[in-house]
């Protein structure tokens, strides 16, 4: 086992590291440690998930029977709270939190490039989340579009405190995303350990880099439009209401940004995490499958070792992640709702190409699992669940295309499957996968199994239920439903409740693990846990992250180490 710093004693470390400082109170508020900041964001996003999912459940209950008054006259408020919030306050922060915690560990750095900037980003994100919730809670209801993405008719709502707060929250959340994206990208470019070339970076880190690069291009547009809207509405204008020409373009291109590409961008680190989960399950990097060559031709061709090496799979996966970001940006540039305003390829093609990039990754995962000896884990089951949900969405899109159904609740069903369901499942899977590094202890297996079943069932129920409602003719954001549509909404409501249950189970388990993190001493690293550098750190990592850092000679440095160790052991045994 070769180390660049200290030679380890038996067990993988030279000494038992001290337990990390208590992540509570003053230590939490003052901390610029990327691990504490990551945990703050992960914990807060889980709490926000429960609030938002409860709002979604209440909204779904409204549609179960005619004349239902669960949310009464507040359906606009609940739609805006749930649909905008679930992306801004759950999917975005949980992945930023995981990236904040894991990126330095994966690249062998002791810290982020700018720890204080990340602290600013995290607290700004939380302040933005607070303003967003406050804006929806205070009376009168906010005079902003249903999900913050459509211009209103001028007489509706108008400017009030709620609208002001929501617009201010958009500015804060955008700023926080921008700060995080720049910091994470700089960290990946500059702070990598010796030997950790860009090509050797783990695929979750690649996903973070790709998404951060996309965010740096997309988020300023969102910020610009939010700024214009704030200036207009705050000073009493109506220039950006629906009856003002040009306003529609601003809304669709600017403020719809967080529906697309931001939602698609947030899928990219999730896909990267799934790559790492698969690689860990087989304890080797992703491998590209050999090309299908006919048997007769194969004998005549020279061997093609390059196509089956792990490096080829790793590079192909990283390329697919970057391609996904590119297509996400292209899909946003040409939104189908403004097809008459800008002459560009339609949104459908880049969205389909995004799906192709994701499909390439899925094929790589399957090929790698087929070739290797699989160590089944709960995290891997979450990846399988995400693949099922993605396949259901693809099938649904195919049916919708063949039947020509458009502009109904079906679209919301697709959003639930792809932009909320897949990243949520993979976030739960990532929490299980990296639990030892995040909390020092693993998450509960039975609780995780329950969460897996509930989240998979819930996601499918919402997606399929809303699609049934859409095929039944229910309009987007319907206030009442009849016939088939009502059956669809009933199925979707079951899904909301199941997802609420899954979130509750995960949140309680994470809370238990965080409490254990404070109590327990750090356990030494076990390099058989994984193949990437974060597994060389104690669990949980000390403030400086690593007590010793292995040499990085490939994209799976710990697999190299354990391979070398086993070779040494075997030869020593033979000698003996």
């Amino acid at each position, binding site marked *: 086992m070769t180390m660049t710093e200290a030679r380890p004693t038996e067990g993988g470390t030279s000494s038992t590291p001290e337990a990390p400082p208590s992540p509570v109170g003053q230590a939490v508020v003052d901390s610029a440690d990327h691990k504490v900041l990551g945990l703050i964001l992960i914990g807060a996003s889980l709490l926000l998930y429960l609030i938002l999912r409860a709002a979604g459940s209440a909204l779904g209950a409204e549609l179960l029977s005619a004349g239902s008054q669960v949310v009464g006259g507040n359906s606009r408020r609940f739609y805006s709270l749930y649909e905008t919030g679930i992306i801004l306050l759950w999917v975005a922060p949980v992945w930023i939190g995981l990236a904040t915690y894991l990126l330095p560990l994966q690249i062998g750095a002791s810290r982020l490039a700018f720890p204080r900037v990340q602290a600013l980003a995290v607290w700004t994100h939380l302040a933005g989340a607070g303003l967003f919730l406050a804006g929806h809670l205070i009376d009168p209801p906010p005079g902003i579009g249903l999900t913050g993405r459509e211009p209103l008719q001028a007489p509706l709502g108008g400017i009030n405190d709620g609208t002001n707060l929501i617009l201010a929250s958009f500015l804060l959340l955008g700023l926080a995303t921008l700060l995080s994206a*720049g910091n994470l990208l700089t960290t990946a470019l500059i702070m990598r350990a010796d030997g950790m070339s860009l090509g050797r970076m783990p695929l979750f880190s690649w996903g973070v880099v790709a998404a951060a690069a996309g965010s740096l291009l997309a988020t300023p547009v969102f910020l610009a439009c939010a700024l214009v809207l704030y200036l207009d509405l705050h000073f009493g204008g109506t220039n950006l209401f629906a009856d003002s020409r040009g306003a529609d373009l601003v809304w669709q291109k600017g403020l719809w940004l967080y529906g697309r590409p931001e939602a698609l961008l947030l899928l990219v680190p999730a896909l990267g995490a799934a790559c790492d989960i698969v690689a860990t399950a087989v304890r080797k990097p992703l491998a590209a499958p050999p090309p299908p060559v006919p048997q007769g031709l194969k004998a005549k061709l020279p061997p093609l070792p390059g196509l089956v090496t792990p490096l080829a799979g790793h590079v192909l996966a990283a390329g697919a992640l970057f391609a996904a970001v590119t297509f996400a940006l292209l899909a946003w540039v040409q939104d189908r709702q403004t097809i008459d305003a800008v002459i560009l390829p339609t949104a459908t093609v880049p969205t389909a190409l995004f799906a192709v990039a994701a499909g390439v990754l899925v094929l790589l995962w399957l090929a790698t699992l087929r070739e290797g000896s699989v160590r089944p884990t709960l995290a891997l089951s979450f990846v399988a669940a995400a693949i099922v949900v993605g396949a259901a969405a693809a099938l649904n899109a195919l049916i919708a295309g063949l039947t020509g159904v458009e502009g109904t609740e079906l679209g919301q069903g697709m959003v639930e499957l792809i932009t909320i369901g897949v990243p949520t499942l993979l976030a739960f899977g990532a929490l299980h996968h990296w639990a030892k590094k995040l909390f020092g202890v693993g998450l509960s297996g039975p609780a995780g199994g329950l969460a897996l079943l509930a989240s998979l069932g819930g996601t499918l129920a919402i997606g399929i239920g809303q699609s049934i409602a859409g095929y039944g003719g229910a309009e987007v954001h319907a206030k009442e439903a009849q016939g088939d549509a009502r059956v669809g909404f009933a199925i979707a409501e079951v899904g909301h409740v199941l997802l609420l249950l899954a979130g509750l189970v995960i949140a309680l388990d994470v809370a238990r693990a965080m409490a254990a993190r404070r109590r327990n001493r750090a356990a030494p690293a076990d390099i058989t846990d994984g193949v990437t550098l974060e597994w060389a750190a104690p669990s949980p990592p000390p403030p400086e992250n690593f007590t010793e850092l292995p040499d990085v000679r490939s994209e799976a440095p710990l697999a190299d180490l354990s391979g070398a160790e086993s070779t040494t052991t075997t030869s020593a045994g033979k000698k003996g």
Partner: protein
Amino acid sequence: MTVAAPLALPPAAQVLERTRSRNAVVVATALYGLAALVLTAALIGTYTAFRSGVSPWPPAGVRKENYFGTLLLAAAAMLMVTAEWIVWSVVHAVRRQTAQAAGLAAFLLLAMLNGLLFTVDEAGFGAATHPYGTIFYAFMLVAALTQLAGLAALVVALARTAGRQISPTEPQLARALSIVLHIAALTWVMVWGALYAGSR
């Protein structure tokens, strides 16, 4: 008799870490600067969207004062040259010229801010009067923020120079300062292009 131990040279790892931190500042400044330019470009896109839908454009009562806009453009061009002058003088260890260039940069930034305030003062319409007003004030706000960022970076760079953290062998922070100044200048160039050169 006690013999004082000789001062040890900083370990190579510390030097490497410091160089990394300095390089990180340059990279991050470039990335955030790029984001600022994208933001300005998005405002130009918004401006174009409004212009295509509102007639007449600019709305009645808006008097465009090209004189100050173009004067600020000249200041922006000078600021970009000055930014490069700062880096050149740091790399060549000409401290007197570094001080002169920094002083000139501060003067130009203050002049640009003053020009912006004057332009806003003379506008004669509010942010919500019409779409032109909304986008005009958004442009002014973003331009002012980039110029204030330039001034803040200048103050930080002076403090770092006093602390001997900028030197011919470690000019990264001077390069980061120059990027901030370039962004401030380029932002105004883009705003000028949209507000004064691009619409009649």
